[in-house]
């Protein structure tokens, strides 16, 4: 069911004055998480920017109960918490909230294990496409060509297709989302919370610090990722793939904005050559072809 602004609670579960950087996409995501799921959430957070955003002990900016845990452990801890809440008969939505490192790299075995066991949790991968908390090092979700502090001349490898890898785990729910489309993200969170078993949501999260763009443009960059077709919003319930409304027009290649519009706003792509851009364009076409096939189009 589509979500409208009127449906959303006024109460904030992420307090203002938290420790996020200006224009932080994770802070946006955390706010939407609270709006979507309210006080049912128990958050499990591996090392990453969100460890910092929540503020300093003994205070904190999170109203939702939060366990901070070691990097590679979040989904297993979440599975344990979820098991306990089920045994005690408490109505909780246990959410593991990890970055691209905590999800796709150091946390990947744990993620895959929880998905295969169909543990009753939501894993949200807040993908800012590099290890931002340690100072912008490349990850397996950094796109081809991007500058990072471990790929000074641009990353030479492609971004891992994590949502598809999770889809192949045959879990009940997989979705992509973007901080540029909060209502779409909130609707997906609510759907995920209504399903028992393992749910994976991959949240695209443009980071002004790491991507080198103006902090006022986080939402603009996030939207451009979708409008250029670089990030495709879809969901899959029991493996059935549907392109989400914000991305639907861009199934038609002619409707997509040129990827340069997305790239030129970001300092991390400063060194891209024309050939590099062609490689990225081909990656966009390939990704769309795959998704359209999966969606039966």
């Amino acid at each position, binding site marked *: 069911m589509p979500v409208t602004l009127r449906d959303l609670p006024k109460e904030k579960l992420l307090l203002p004055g938290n420790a996020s950087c200006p224009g932080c996409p994770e802070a946006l995501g955390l706010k939407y998480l609270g709006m979507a799921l309210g006080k049912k959430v128990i958050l499990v957070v591996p090392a990453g920017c969100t460890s910092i955003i929540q503020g300093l002990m003994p205070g904190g900016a999170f109203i939702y109960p939060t366990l901070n845990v070691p990097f590679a452990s979040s989904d297993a801890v979440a599975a344990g918490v979820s098991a306990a809440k089920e045994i*005690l008969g408490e109505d909780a939505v246990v959410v593991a909230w990890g970055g691209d490192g905590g999800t796709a790299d150091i946390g990947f075995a744990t993620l895959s294990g929880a998905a295969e066991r169909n543990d009753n949790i939501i894993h949200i991968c807040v993908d800012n496409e590099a290890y931002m908390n340690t100072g912008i090092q490349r990850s397996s979700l950094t796109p081809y060509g991007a500058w990072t502090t471990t790929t000074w001349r641009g990353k030479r490898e492609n971004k891992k297709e994590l949502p598809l890898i999770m889809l192949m785990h045959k879990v009940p729910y997989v979705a992509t989302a973007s901080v540029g489309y909060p209502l779409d993200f909130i609707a997906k969170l609510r759907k995920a919370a209504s399903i028992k078993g393992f749910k994976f949501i991959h949240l695209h999260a443009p980071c002004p610090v790491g991507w080198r763009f103006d902090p006022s443009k986080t939402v603009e960059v996030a939207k451009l990722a979708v409008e250029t077709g670089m990030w495709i919003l879809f969901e899959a319930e029991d493996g059935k793939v549907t392109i989400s409304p914000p991305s639907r027009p861009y199934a038609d290649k002619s409707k997509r904005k040129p990827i340069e519009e997305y790239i030129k706003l970001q300092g991390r792509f400063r060194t891209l050559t024309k050939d590099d851009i062609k490689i990225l364009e081909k990656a966009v076409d390939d990704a769309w072809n795959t998704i359209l096939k999966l969606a039966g189009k």
Partner: protein
Amino acid sequence: MVVKPLTGNYAAAYAAKLSRVKVVAAYPITPQTTIVEKLAQFIEDGEMDAKMIRVESEHSALAAAYGAASGGVRAYTATSSQGLLYMHEMVWWVAGSRIPLVMTIVTRTLGPPWNIWTDHSDIMDQRDSGWLIMMAEHNQEVLDETIKMFKITEDPRVFLPGIVGLDAFILSHTTEPVDIPDQELVDTFLPPRRQPYVFKPGDSLLMGNVPRNLKENMRMREDIHNSLEAAKKVIEEVDEEWGKLTGRRYGGLIECYRCEDASHFIVGMGAWVGDMREAVDSLRTNGIKVGLIKVRYVRPFPREDILKWVVNAKSVIVFDRSVSAGSAGPLFLDVAAHLMAAGIRVPVKNILAGITGLDVTYEDIADAVLKSVAEVEETGKFSRFIEWYYGR
């Protein structure tokens, strides 16, 4: 109560069942595997009302047990050797979180090379983490101490996780008669779970975010230390209470054998304490006044108990089944440091034996002790403080 032939591993599994563990999370590794198998069977057969999380690694095993325990239920895991080292990061995290849970460690040496036999390298590698750590001598003690460990760790004076160790194969796969207490007895003994906090929806609680004040952070570490000190009394109380219910008292943190009139003391822990008892008997028949101090709890370290016995001793010989390479055996280091700090000037020596699982017989132990005692009787001291003993 029923007496059954049980392996050490099955004794641990029965204890977890009797303790009404609600979540088991474990990953198989030799020699721990049969614990996981038995618990899976208990749960699938409906004999045990618990959920089993069949994790993909040891890191996740302790992470999932920790999650369940943080969520408010009794949780249990078990591992060995490489698996324990793989979960080492979580070992510290659980203690730092002050979340009580119980883990069985079937001690096994560390590679390379691949080797499944017992020594204490794996368990001693956890000794600075803030967990209570004990080593059992026999299968009855494995069962008893596992049940007791739940009570000790969930005591508000302690609120820390605890490890029950047993030696690979010597206990884990060896069958001994074990008294299995009735469920009603264990229910009387073990109160409903207590813990410092529980994660609940709607209850704002943050655990583990960055500290504003490092003095507070350092105080948290001191609190762990102080709680381990306070645990000494709890261990003794619980030992006494269990003794009243079952007739089995172990003596708290240490157990002494023929110590009353002893001039020389052997210190050791784990399954080979059984062999040390025989060695003491055999040395005694040769007129050598040897006593045995069995270390049951290595954390908290039984400083007062050991010092009390050895204050007027002619020598102390500490057997270690692991070594802090570049220094000495960890049990020896603790004993020597506390003797020194208490101003007790008694010759003390470290015998490193059985490392990597090399078999040690009671004759070996008697031989090593006999030679050491002879030296100290003749010269009043040990010419070297450390001896690598490979057998006769």
